[in-house]
């Protein structure tokens, strides 16, 4: 599963000037309370914690303070071929900046080596405007430019991949769905039936073990009408999302109620599952497309009052 989000952040006065300068192909540091110049700049002094405001230009070349070598770069890193990570003390600065060094091979890297910035082709006012650093010896870095509007925001896309593992209980439930069954489990301590089954009974804290097959019909305990459109929405609003308490279960499951007008859905309404065509079934909750009214008389409030 991949999750991602484009984080958009506002910049304070110090980082705004730093990012604006990057867009101009210049690197700014700041002068600390002890006279040291920090590049990249700090918003607050590392010794006195006072706000720092005096920015000074540094670089574009510097000296490697420490380094390592990465043979297999990871997603999102500055280079997609083997490169060095380094802390680089830029000329005019007293503390160091973390970045990548495009040195070609590891034997080119050493503490004390001289490097210079390589600018991204189209600077926008982001730390990635520094594409990487490179050993000094080739062409000089691209010249600064002017006329850049102040940069006040940065956007950084963050993408992570996860492999989710199903628990033993969840596996039974998913395998049951692939056969058109709803498999819950009963708590050995309090007797409550959970569907989908959980790793432990949330009331007693003990694992549930006994399988219980449940019917695919139940009672709407509570519901809401979705009126808000959002990206990825499958059904045009308005539509109803409800808690459905399957007959014999002690915990309701959330599902869609279709097959009637939203304003007809009510607490106590009896509903039945509408399964997708059998050839589309898999080990997934999506086998049940939605629930729809079963036509039975409404369940009395007392029959589900304990499950709200």
């Amino acid at each position, binding site marked *: 599963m991949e999750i991602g989000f484009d984080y958009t952040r506002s910049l304070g006065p110090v980082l705004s000037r730093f990012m604006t300068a990057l867009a101009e192909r210049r690197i700014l540091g700041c002068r600390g309370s002890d006279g040291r110049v920090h590049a990249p700049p700090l918003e607050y002094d*590392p010794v006195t914690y006072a706000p720092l405001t005096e920015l000074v230009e540094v670089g574009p070349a510097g000296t490697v303070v420490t380094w390592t070598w990465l043979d297999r770069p990871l997603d999102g890193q500055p280079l997609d071929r083997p490169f060095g990570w380094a*802390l680089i003390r830029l000329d005019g600065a007293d503390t160091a900046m973390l970045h990548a060094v495009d040195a070609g091979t590891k034997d080119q890297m050493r503490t004390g080596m001289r490097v210079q910035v390589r600018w991204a082709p189209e600077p926008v006012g982001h730390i990635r405007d520094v594409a990487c650093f490179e050993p000094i010896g080739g062409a000089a870095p691209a010249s600064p430019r002017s006329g850049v509007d102040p940069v006040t925001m940065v956007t950084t896309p963050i993408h992570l991949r996860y492999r989710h593992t199903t628990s033993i209980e969840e596996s039974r439930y998913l395998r049951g769905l692939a056969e058109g069954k709803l498999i819950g489990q009963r708590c050995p301590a309090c007797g409550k039936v959970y569907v989908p089954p959980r*790793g432990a009974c949330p009331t007693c804290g003990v694992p549930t073990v006994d399988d219980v097959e449940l019917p695919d019909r139940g009672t709407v305990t509570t519901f809401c009408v979705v009126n808000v459109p959002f990206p990825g929405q499958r059904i045009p609003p308005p539509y109803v999302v409800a808690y459905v308490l399957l007959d014999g279960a002690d915990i309701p499951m959330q599902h869609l109620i279709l097959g009637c007008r939203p304003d007809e859905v009510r607490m106590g309404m009896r509903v039945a599952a509408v399964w997708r065509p059998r050839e589309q079934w898999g080990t997934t909750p999506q086998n049940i497309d939605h629930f729809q009214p079963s036509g039975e008389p409404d369940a009395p409030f007392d029959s589900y009052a304990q499950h709200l």
Partner: protein
Amino acid sequence: MIDVAVVGFAQSPCLPSAGTTSGVELLVPVFQEVLASTGLAKQDIDFWCSGSSDYLAGRAFSFVNAVDAIGAYPPVAESHVEMDAAWALYEAYVKLLTGEARTALVYGFGKSSAGQLRRVLALQLDPYLHAPLWPDSVSIAALQARAGLDAGRYTEREMAEVAARSRTAALGNPKAQVSGTDTADDLLAAPYVADPLRAHDCAPVGDGAAAVVLAAGDEARRLRARPAWITGFAHNVDSPALGVRDLTSVPSASAAATAAGLRGDEVDAVELHAPFSHQEILLATALGLGDAVRVNPSGGVLCGNPMFSAGLSRIGLAAEHVMSGRADRVAGHATSGPALQQNLVCVMEGA
């Protein structure tokens, strides 16, 4: 002044892959073990506090799922930190000091294997200047390791000797993920993972959970013949700006040790949270540990580093030395952040 002690500890085995991101499957047996060891039932716990991370789980509010493992009915008093559970232990310690609770159960859990841990950990860095470059946690540790080598703080052989000693010690620890009889020479023959770090210099990626029970005053005396009384507990943090720090020293660890009253020549055993071999050497210096101190008798986190519970386990393991009578005065240490940025020290005594 209320006295607070560790009275119980349990941890799951550290495995390359175990359980789900909810933590429930790992926590249920750990809770049963730690409660049984103290004779307490869940109703006897006044305060629950946990440490875990949504970034490890890949889900928002993932710690809420783990509350299933408690069986939180009737409702419980509960809190959470998005940090190693050693910091949750600190919160619970303060809670007991206020007198608002007499017992607390603190737990940590994490499924490091669900994502790419060294990449996920880049997101603990500042989001403007560092995280957008995706500097992975192993590479950052390697920058620190080389700075220490260049400064003459240690050699690659001394780093390998830390790993070899840890692996040998872990032969006696059934919860360890890695153990073995390799010598430093054997280990030095391996290739670099991130020069100057080899695989043995880096904690393995593993999944696990742990729990510690705290009790105050007479309640602690009732539960244990020999509680591990907390005599000092402090945590400090260094600058998030990597390039500003002198990576060859650990001022925040020294400050925490001083604040916790740790005397490095007066403790019998210390469990250090050093996910990279060179960090054990830097920490021993920062904490002023004497030569007679037993460091990481468990094998340390180089032999099993389940994220978000490993720091808590350092304190639990150290406390076990006191509770069992093997030691009179011990310390547990936990770290968080890049290259030992945050450090916590808990000093415990038998009487």
